[in-house]
């Protein structure tokens, strides 16, 4: 589904945060990217979604290059992204937030309505809160608004950055459940997480980064080995 080959990217000229990262996310799986704080996990997702342009290497979605495309073009390609920081539109209601997720097909009123309903079914708590200002919701509920907004376009690929950071364990568990449910709906998920244990648990494939480079990777069968390797390495 998504394939990165030898990607270099960064914020300042002559300073690459990503120094040759490669990864593949298979369709209908959860692929995790783990690593310590500051290794470039978020930078990786920003580069895939077009907020940064790769200076070298290729990024392809189903074989077609998407490197350097503008972020606002991504939904048309079936791609969506939930950044690490809080990013609901705080002054707008929950419903307005969700609606805006359907911006690309805004003229199709029926589809907007259908998608709204689907998301209220996925996240029932949002239905009750739909007239509330999104900025007033709790952290976990705001994450759900973000997930729901991302789901509006019925994405094929979803990039999620540290979805449970700062949330209570119970709420975090709920979010991981939702991600698995989305995978089961057929959506490919690329998950970036510092919470190594939890991430590995829900993933089908895991990449570990160190200093902007691939360090290790493993599929479900090799997780035990990966864990040991990581422990050793840390």
């Amino acid at each position, binding site marked *: 589904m998504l394939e990165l080959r030898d990607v270099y990217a960064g914020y300042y000229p002559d300073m690459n945060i990503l120094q040759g990262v490669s990864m593949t996310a298979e369709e209908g799986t959860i692929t995790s990217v783990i690593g310590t704080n500051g290794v470039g996990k978020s930078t990786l997702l920003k580069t895939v979604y077009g907020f940064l342009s790769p200076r070298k290497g290729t990024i392809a979605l189903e074989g077609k290059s998407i490197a350097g495309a503008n972020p*606002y073009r991504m939904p048309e390609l079936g791609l969506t992204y939930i950044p690490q920081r809080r*990013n609901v539109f705080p002054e707008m209601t929950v419903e307005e937030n969700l609606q*805006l997720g359907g911006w*690309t097909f805004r003229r199709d009123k029926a589809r907007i309505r259908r998608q709204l309903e689907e998301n209220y079914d996925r996240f029932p708590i949002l239905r009750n809160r739909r007239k509330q200002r999104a900025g007033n919701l709790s952290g976990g509920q705001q994450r759900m608004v973000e997930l729901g907004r991302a789901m509006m376009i019925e994405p094929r690929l979803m990039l999620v950055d540290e979805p449970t950071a700062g949330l209570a364990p119970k709420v975090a568990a709920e979010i991981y459940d939702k991600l698995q449910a989305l995978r089961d709906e057929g959506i490919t998920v690329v998950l970036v997480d510092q919470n190594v244990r939890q991430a590995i648990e829900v993933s089908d494939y895991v990449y570990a980064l160190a200093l902007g480079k691939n360090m290790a990777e493993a599929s479900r069968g090799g997780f035990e080995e990966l864990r040991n390797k990581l422990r050793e390495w840390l």
Partner: protein
Amino acid sequence: MYGADYLIAQAANGLVVGCLYALMAVGLTLIFSVLKVINFAHGEFYMVGGYTAYYMVTVLGGLHPLLGIFFAMIVLLGLGSLFEVAFLRPIHLGAVNRPAEYAILITFGLSFFLQNLVLSLAGPFPHRSPSFMSGGLTVGPVTISADRLIAAGLALVLMIALMLFIRATWTGKAMRAVSQDRDAAAVSGINPFKMNNIAFGIGASLAGASGALIAPIFAVVPDVGVLPSLRSFVIVVLGGMGSVKGALIGGVAIGLVESLGAALIPDPSRALAYRELYGLVIFVLVLLFRPQGLFGEKQ
């Protein structure tokens, strides 16, 4: 000391003038909220709007003065959009090293350029558009000219239309989304550059409308926008940077404060000396005690 009639007359005048103040400030706050740029050329958009209406009505078209306003809005919409694409887009493309300083310099430069361009094209003498309607309305102690009433009424209509637009339409919501979280809006497929362009165009167009509305009342000269633009900054801070509702209420409030302040302070030489200063006093008080403004969000 003064009768109720007098105070009512003062308040009515403040209210009417306040609506005009508000319309200009609303454009400024809209631009700020979406682009995060303070438009120092806002007063000159107002001025160009006044001249456009004047020339459309008198020299070129012989249009009805009310149509002159419409033309002024169209011209400013175009001018604003072009300027945004050419000079402000680089900021949001990350092509500028010191975006804050650049934004100040480029809009200030535009202001200087427009003043001098109009001075050389239209000449140094003031021009007044024909009245929208002659006569006036007298209710009890209050007499207000028809021009002022029409201008204030149209300003209100335009502001309400804008509020409905940003509240209820897709484009309006997208503009709000960009103003609240640029990147998140882009993630949802909203083109933030386009929203910048629309917001700047509409903001400029509202300034142009205010200029066209005052053209029959106060007349236009190349630097007619200087004081109104200063006042707009005060109103925008008072109302909360980026809040349209705040700018509307702030504008009317400043209109009332200016006229009632002038009305009530006993010594006239002092009362009226710096009528505009009342606004500045409020400006400072707001910055000290409620920096987010009346309707702004706490950071």
